[in-house]
């Protein structure tokens, strides 16, 4: 008889726990406040463990990387010297072009791109699976970080902050299957939506068939999603597939290698939507 009652209690407890977690999942998808609060408690309670383990892991990663880096440095040094000479020549040419560009921009009445306020952050840990492609950063609400802020690195867009506590931020990478960012091909100016696939590639969707996108084109953020400022590298075209509905699906190789990323920058001011508003027009207050 006591065995029966234990089994029954376990079943009741199981149903209660499963039901509670189903409610959490549904709340999380709807971005309910209660879910965020519970998540905040769990992450606050376990944050010291993650910080310490991330630092120790970072040390190991640095050791492993350091040995192979020394071997590679000698070879790269020679290449870089040659590259430096070439770039010096290019710099002289581009200075002339920049000055010309400034004059033309002024003539067209376009506003300068505002450099958004940002803070640097280090990667505490990464979790790259087909279901979740996220990184944890060592900055949180104490540093002014909040949900939906864009994260970038040298050379391109990284992802978007989806959860944040006092000292940490969870960032959904562009390659996450639930991620999406507005993109534009740099040469053909074809626009579309870049979505993650949970793998090492991205897809640029909703691009018209005769948009003129070709292999090797670079896709950057267009800024119209109101999260990423325009101009941050997203990826390079590696395949183009035509669809029966008259559009194309364009496969991209991401601009950044998320596996080796150690430091990133969180842009503290969303600029995309604001920047694209026409200048000289009075906004409704």
């Amino acid at each position, binding site marked *: 008889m006591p065995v029966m009652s*234990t089994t029954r*209690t*376990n079943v009741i*407890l*199981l149903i209660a*726990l*499963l039901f509670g*977690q*189903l*409610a*959490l*999942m*549904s*709340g*999380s*998808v709807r971005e309910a406040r209660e*879910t965020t609060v*519970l*998540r905040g408690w*769990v*992450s606050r309670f*376990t944050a010291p*463990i*993650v910080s*310490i*383990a*991330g630092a*120790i*892991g*970072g040390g*190991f*990663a640095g050791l*492993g990387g350091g040995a192979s880096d020394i071997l590679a440095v000698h070879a790269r040094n020679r290449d870089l010297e040659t590259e430096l000479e070439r770039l010096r020549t290019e710099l002289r040419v581009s200075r002339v072009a920049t000055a010309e560009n400034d004059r033309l921009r002024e003539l067209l009445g376009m506003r300068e791109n505002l450099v958004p306020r940002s803070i640097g952050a280090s*990667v*505490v*840990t*990464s*979790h*790259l*699976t*087909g*279901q*979740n*492609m*996220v990184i*944890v950063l060592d900055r949180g609400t104490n540093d002014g970080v909040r949900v939906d802020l864009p994260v970038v690195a040298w050379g391109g867009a990284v992802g978007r902050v*989806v*959860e944040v506590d006092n000292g940490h931020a*969870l960032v*959904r990478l562009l390659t*996450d*299957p*639930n991620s999406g960012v507005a993109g534009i091909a740099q040469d053909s100016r074809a626009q579309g939506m870049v979505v993650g*696939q*949970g*793998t090492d590639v991205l897809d640029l969707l909703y691009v018209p068939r005769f948009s003129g996108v070709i292999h090797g084109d670079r896709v950057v953020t267009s800024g119209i999603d109101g999260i990423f400022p325009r101009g941050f590298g997203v990826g390079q075209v590696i395949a183009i597939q035509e669809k029966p509905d008259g559009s194309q699906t364009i496969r991209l190789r991401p601009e950044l290698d*998320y*596996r080796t990323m150690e430091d990133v920058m969180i842009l503290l001011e969303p600029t995309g939507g604001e920047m694209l508003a026409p200048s000289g027009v009075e906004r409704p207050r």
Partner: protein
Amino acid sequence: MKLLTVIAVLAIGLALQTGLGRVWPDAPRYVDVMMVPVVWYAIAGSQRSGMLVGCASGLVQDAWFQAAAFGISGFKKTLIGWVLGGLGSRFDLNSTPSRFVFGAVATLSDSLLGLALRQLLDQASAAPHPLEIVIKAIVTGVLVVVAFGMTGWREGKRGRRSLK
């Protein structure tokens, strides 16, 4: 004391998962460290402890590594902890092969349940390669065996000390 042990075990699991993710970001594809305490408590403890540790372990995992549906790992691991705990109380699972099989089957179920739940919640996800799932199950199964080996060794040492 028991609660403190559970907290310590989960903390070690989270630390290992975090450290591993920092050194090798692809590690979560091939190993689920947070599954080890669930299987351990389901086999060595009771059905209830397996279920509760599964719930706690899953929620911790969700809080740190889940971008979309918070609670999904908690749901999976609670269910797995309950099922394993039920089987553990009916069968003798004190041999190395049975512990390995339980660890592997639990991880396999976790992966498949995850896919089903994401479909149910209309969340996009890339189906993992079958080989990835198999490797993850094997590696986690081995970790379960290692965890049992370590606790057995510790208890043996303690027993020898008390005999002296």
